[in-house]
């Protein structure tokens, strides 16, 4: 298996380097720069120029890039122009919040997909099928920002049983029950679209698996349909569902930008949006590179898991 990972590393590195160049360049293309935000609307052009040179923005672009890349390798993520503090602490705080939220959302999505997807294939009844399509439509049609507001209005304002936003004051580990209540609404809001697409994918691949000959063999042996779906079709369909989930991860961070704003969840999503709108280059560069790294890592993990789950790849054939 390690050979498999090793064979994928060079391509991952290429993606990271190219992405870093793209991010660095794209940000420079965006008009306005941190000096403008720092200077504020009433600054004079001289003050603007003073701040720009203080931040080293007047040096040639490629020199800034190499400096940034160099410091990246030495593990120094640099300092945020606006917040002044070190980016490492800023990102770590945000990273923890987003990882907790994203994991909760993905877990919720997987549970929903398994329950609804397998349920729909098991019962084969028309109304369950319609239910899945309907839920799928709602997941896609109802934008996150609307479902978010509705969830808050119903569960936090109308009948105040859940907090309307924010992170648990004492941190995640201290009181799991309190943490769970803070997590429920944002996780549902972020997880719904992901659940929609992987449910659709799971139902599709389960139906394809059930059309395979080995299902006919099992049925001819009198194995009840419920066991065939759960213990034969599902394991065979899981690897491809995992791959679909891997691709969804990219959209989870995108979704996080909206959900973290609606639920005042101080994660990387809101940090990226703040960073870009305030032209805080170092923060945005680190965050975007981190999101690309996370995506590449998840792709690698899903491929490895896909290989591990599918014995044909794990153990070479010997016909």
């Amino acid at each position, binding site marked *: 298996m390690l050979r498999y990972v090793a064979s994928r590393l060079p391509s991952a590195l290429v993606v990271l380097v190219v992405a870093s160049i793209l991010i660095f360049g794209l940000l420079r293309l*965006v008009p306005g720069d941190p000096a403008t935000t720092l200077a504020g609307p009433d600054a004079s052009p001289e003050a603007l120029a003073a701040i720009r040179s203080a931040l080293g923005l007047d040096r040639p672009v490629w020199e800034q890039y190499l400096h940034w890349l160099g410091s990246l390798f030495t593990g120094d993520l640099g300092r945020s122009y606006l917040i002044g503090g070190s980016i490492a602490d800023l990102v770590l705080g945000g990273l923890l919040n987003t990882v907790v939220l994203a994991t909760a959302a993905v877990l919720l999505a997987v549970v929903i997909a398994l329950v609804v997807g397998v349920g729909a294939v098991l019962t084969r009844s028309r109304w369950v099928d319609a239910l899945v*399509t309907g839920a799928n439509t709602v997941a896609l*049609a109802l*934008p996150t920002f609307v479902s978010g507001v509705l969830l808050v209005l119903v569960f936090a304002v109308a009948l105040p049983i859940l907090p309307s936003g924010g992170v648990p004051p004492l941190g995640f580990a201290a009181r799991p029950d309190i943490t769970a209540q803070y997590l429920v609404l944002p996780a549902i809001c972020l997880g719904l679209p992901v659940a929609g697409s992987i449910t*659709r994918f799971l139902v599709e691949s389960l139906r394809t698996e059930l059309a395979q000959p080995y299902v006919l063999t099992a049925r001819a042996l009198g194995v009840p349909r419920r066991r065939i779906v759960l213990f034969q079709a599902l394991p065979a369909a899981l690897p491809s569902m995992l791959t679909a989930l*891997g691709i969804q991860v990219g959209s989870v961070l*995108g979704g996080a*930008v909206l959900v973290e704003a609606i639920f005042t969840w101080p994660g990387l999503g809101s940090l990226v949006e703040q960073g870009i709108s305030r032209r805080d280059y170092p923060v945005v560069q680190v965050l975007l590179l981190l999101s690309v790294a996370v995506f590449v890592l998840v792709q690698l993990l899903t491929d490895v898991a*896909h290989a591990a789950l599918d014995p044909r790849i794990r153990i070479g054939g010997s016909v």
Partner: protein
Amino acid sequence: MTAVQDPPVAVPVAAPDVRDDVGVGVPRGRWFAALLRGRGLVGTVFVGVVVLAGLLAPVLAPYSPLQQIPGANLLPPDAAHWLGTDEVNRDVLSRVLYGTRVDLLVLVTAVPLGAVTGSLVGLLSSLSTASDVVAQRVFDILLAFPVLILGIALAAVAGPGLTTVILVIALAEIPIYGRLLRGAALRVREMPYVEAATVVGAGRWWVLRRHVLPNAIEPVGVQVTVSLAVAVFVEGAMSFIGIGIRPPDPSLGSIIADSVTALDANPGLALGPLAVVTALVLGFLLMAQALAAGRRT
């Protein structure tokens, strides 16, 4: 994810499949026939109604989408305004109808643009291993950037507006179609009829043009319907964070974005566009399922 290819092993003899056992081979209906019955028909009807409403907007709309009616600030639905008015005194029903047009314009340009570009890149990249590796990495990078963040960056460069929305949706579609077509190309290239053509002297381009492309159309059809549903979502999200369609032009996403702050004053402001979006998305999903089912038998 690179397709997993096992080493070529002599395939043992294949026997006539069940279908042959039934005598004459069952002819496969044209793939769009799936859209004319059952689930596919329902989907097509939904989408058709929305498209019609969009196209006939000038006829159906009681007011001009930009007309500000004095004194009619955030009125709830009533006889004069079936969906009430918005915070700048404009009739919501008219804006939803004209907004549908804008969204249809976005769908008709962005999704095909992304699909065609993605497909071409996917096909061409499958020609040589070098171009294949490069294309795969480009797809990875495009997929790595969440759509919204791509949108924020592009809007900052090119300014918010229709072109940015179209560009972002197209960019997000490219890797999806790229990978789809690359997979289709690799699968078709293994088929005996391609091998027979190669033996007789057909070049890579001939195989691509005559065999790979026609056979790849079907999976693309299914994916297009799914992409259309996602595109409506992206337009809405971009308008919500203020980088979508520019005011005063209406678009379903921007109306929904404004409606969020006025839910109690005029629920019609949210219900109107949401109904249209739901109809569109439900329609596309049903069509996608019908096409996929058509492909599977």
